[in-house]
């Protein structure tokens, strides 16, 4: 599949309760690379293998959770077209000037039906992954520091209006539905997993009465062994582990979930499968959703399903 239009989740801005504690965690335990700090006090990170300047931005606040998620689009013409398409569809958009986030171009900001703030942007400075673009090595010292994921991969968001939300992402933003979970009635959506690329999910949603909630943000590792190593690093550092290591039925990823020092849940995972827009979506029925979520436990886990920030 040629990746056009919306390409990938590019940045997420998180609220944290104690900035210094959180910076130490994201840098030395999760193993992201700090790339900058701005006048507003926000701290910027990227995963070692990411090329753009930042992907995770921390902001100190009096409550945890997610401020916004940004998707990188192919180029400026695409950004202009998508802004027009969103407005034509009836979605109000706002322009955030270039430079408001460090090393990031102009952004088109809007609120989706689940209550989350989304942004599209075309430009973020390529600072590289620590390797030249000519004759690189496969990995570098930074890829061994902490858990050290390859990239910020996707997130799972909780909010209302899943049907309307799915329509917006598939009809305007070019995503396709990869997997879904249905409620007892066999029709209404409990969860959707959508992709704008080859990935099994670039974004996922679960129906929830409160808008704008974060279930988790996820980071990609490249093997099951690295997932176990992540679990060891979490326990060595007394990180609050939620569940795992285990495997998902939905998307097939192997995974461990934990919480950052402010209670924002994150995932480090590997695997899953590749998807294409012509693939029929996979459906999970409500009576089997336990196995869909955690394939070995095969039952619902209250904390995993309901604790959000």
């Amino acid at each position: 599949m040629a990746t056009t239009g919306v390409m990938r989740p590019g940045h997420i801005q998180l609220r944290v309760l104690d900035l210094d504690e959180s910076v130490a965690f994201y840098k030395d335990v999760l193993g992201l690379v700090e790339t900058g700090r701005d006048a507003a006090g926000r701290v910027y990170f990227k995963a070692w293998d990411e090329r753009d300047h930042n992907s995770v931005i921390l902001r100190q606040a009096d409550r945890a959770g997610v401020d916004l998620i940004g998707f990188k689009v192919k180029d400026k013409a695409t950004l202009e077209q998508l802004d027009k398409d969103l407005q034509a569809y009836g979605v109000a958009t706002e322009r955030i000037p270039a430079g408001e986030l460090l090393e990031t171009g102009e952004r088109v900001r809007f609120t989706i039906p689940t209550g989350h703030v989304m942004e599209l942007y075309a430009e973020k400075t390529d600072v590289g992954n620590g390797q030249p673009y000519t004759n690189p090595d496969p990995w570098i010292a930074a890829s061994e520091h902490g858990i050290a994921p390859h990239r910020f991969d996707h997130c799972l968001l909780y909010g209302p209006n899943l049907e309307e939300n799915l329509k917006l992402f598939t009809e305007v933003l070019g995503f396709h539905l990869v997997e879904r979970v249905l409620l007892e009635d066999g029709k209404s959506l409990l969860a959707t997993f959508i992709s704008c690329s080859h990935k099994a999910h670039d974004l996922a949603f679960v129906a929830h009465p409160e808008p704008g909630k974060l279930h988790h943000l996820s980071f990609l590792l490249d093997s099951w062994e690295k997932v176990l190593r992540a679990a060891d690093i979490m326990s060595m550092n007394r990180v609050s582990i939620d569940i795992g290591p285990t495997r998902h039925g939905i998307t097939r990823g192997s995974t461990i979930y934990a919480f950052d020092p402010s209670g924002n849940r994150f995932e480090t995972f590997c695997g899953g499968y590749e998807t294409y827009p012509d693939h029929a979506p996979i459906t999970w029925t409500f009576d089997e959703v336990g196995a869909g979520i955690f394939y070995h436990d095969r039952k619902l886990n209250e904390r995993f399903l309901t604790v959000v920030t």
Partner: protein
Amino acid sequence: MNAPAPKVFHQVTIVETGEVYRCREDETLLAGMERLGKRGIPVGCRGGGCGVCKVQVEAGEYSKRVMSRAYVSAEEEAAGIVLACRVKPLSDLRLAVLGKMKKNVCATPSAAAADARQS
């Protein structure tokens, strides 16, 4: 090599269940409960962010760290309503559980989705 300093313990009583456990002064009320495999206070993120372990301290002294204003207001905090994952005991202590996984955690997925459809 010097021996490590002796650990200081306090007795924590959960009013509803009568559960009593020994909690170290250098660990949170929630961590102390979990480490001994005890139950009573609902366990969420353990980071002051999700509000699940909300308790009312009825008696006893404690130290505390910043916790989410989405779940504990300044007035509540002043009145001893806190998140058990952010509080460490400085004396024996009695607490009542307020969280009961009420806010987000009581809702089954289907109930949450039903609420979402109504809103």
